[in-house]
């Protein structure tokens, strides 16, 4: 349905192919969260890999930072319709976390766990083979608390609510268990290129 009198402000055509349907290009970096920003001190920080309720391995901040660091520069897409190009992160690939724990993926699904109780579910295969990391740096600097520091998940090929802020663990689950926003009307998978925003989107 054409809207009378609306012409819009189209992005330059050379970037069209990088902007998923329904998204607009954002130069800033909006902050979205369901509650106050937790202040997580690195002295208190820990990260635990779990199989169901059972902890497999836990790292403190120093141990985690000793894992191999990888750079990842990616476009990110928020379900609230902004897309930001070329965000530059450094962190530990999920592959390298699993390797350090000496395990292969333990189940087909993973739940990301955060210090503030936030959770989000991701199929395990979307986290491995270089697709995702636990990011520690943004643009070369420690990630600010508003953007999920000290450590956040980065799953750039899915809507950004999957990239859980203030991450403190990954939990292997047998079933695809909906997380915080998935229980509140958002899509169980969240592929921006298929516009999987809300429950029931194809």
């Amino acid at each position: 349905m054409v809207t009378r009198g609306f012409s819009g402000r189209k992005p330059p055509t050379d970037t069209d192919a990088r902007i998923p349907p329904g998204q607009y290009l954002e130069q800033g970096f909006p902050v979205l969260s369901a509650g106050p920003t937790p202040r997580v001190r690195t002295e208190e920080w820990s990260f635990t890999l779990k199989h169901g309720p059972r902890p497999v391995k836990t790292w403190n901040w120093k141990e985690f930072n000793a894992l191999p660091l990888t750079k990842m520069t990616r476009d990110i897409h928020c379900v609230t319709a902004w897309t930001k190009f070329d965000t530059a992160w450094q962190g530990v690939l999920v592959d390298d976390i699993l390797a350090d724990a000496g395990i292969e993926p333990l189940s087909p699904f993973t739940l990301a766990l955060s210090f503030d109780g936030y959770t989000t579910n991701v199929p395990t295969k979307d986290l491995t083979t270089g697709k995702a990391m636990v990011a520690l740096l943004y643009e070369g600097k420690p990630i600010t608390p508003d953007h999920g520091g000290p450590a956040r998940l980065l799953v750039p090929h899915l809507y950004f609510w999957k990239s859980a802020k203030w991450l403190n663990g990954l939990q292997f689950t047998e079933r695809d268990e909906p997380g915080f926003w998935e229980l509140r009307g958002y899509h169980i998978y969240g592929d921006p290129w298929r516009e999987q925003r809300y429950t029931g989107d194809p």
Partner: protein
Amino acid sequence: MSDGPAAQSPWQTVTITRIEKRTPRVTSFFLRPSRPFAYRAGQHVDVRLTAPDGYQARRSYSIASAPESGETIELAIERLDDGEVSPFFHEVAAVGDEVELRGPLGGHFVWSDSDGGPLLLVGGGSGVVPLMAMIRHRAALKSAVPMALVFSARVWNEVIFRDELIDFHDRRDGFDLVLTLTREPARRPADHSRRVDAAMMAQSIVRLPAPLRFAFVCGSNAFVSAAAEALINAGVPAGLIRTERYGV
């Protein structure tokens, strides 16, 4: 808290039935859906505009009307100078026009009378919009849930819904309005003339007749960060605070 999923909702055409200027920068658009829908106070909708060449823009807007308000919903839209959708509404949209809308959306920043209280609402600028839906919901039901709104605006003339809010306050039925103006002196006895801070939060909380059940904070990112920190410094547990942010 009934924190359930948002209902599945496809796009539908809505008609603009009324336009009402609220402040120099904020105008309310009353929309009549072709398929009326039930919503909860605090929820939002997505609006989609389509250019003749097929280009589309979508934005989320909070619903300002109470769930009890009948078959039209009110969106109070702030004009953003570098915006793409809000300038269309402010400069082009007219009564009788149709736009596409999807909703209701959002299952976290919501409150129903049955969720109880007391509630502290903290709004900055157009961040008051989803809070207004909660305040109007309370009024529509003649609810006894104690509710306080701390509303920060730059100046008196930018206090969105000002007369209606003062009217609710003057009923003395458990709704308490505190305005704080950041660029003008306060005009009412209990109002302030500064940015929100922990003392202001504590003062509003202490006037509630029972311990706080929830705090809802909405506004720009900077405002929400400052207000949430003020609430925590005033002793409100982080788990009671729900936030909604916009802007960068």
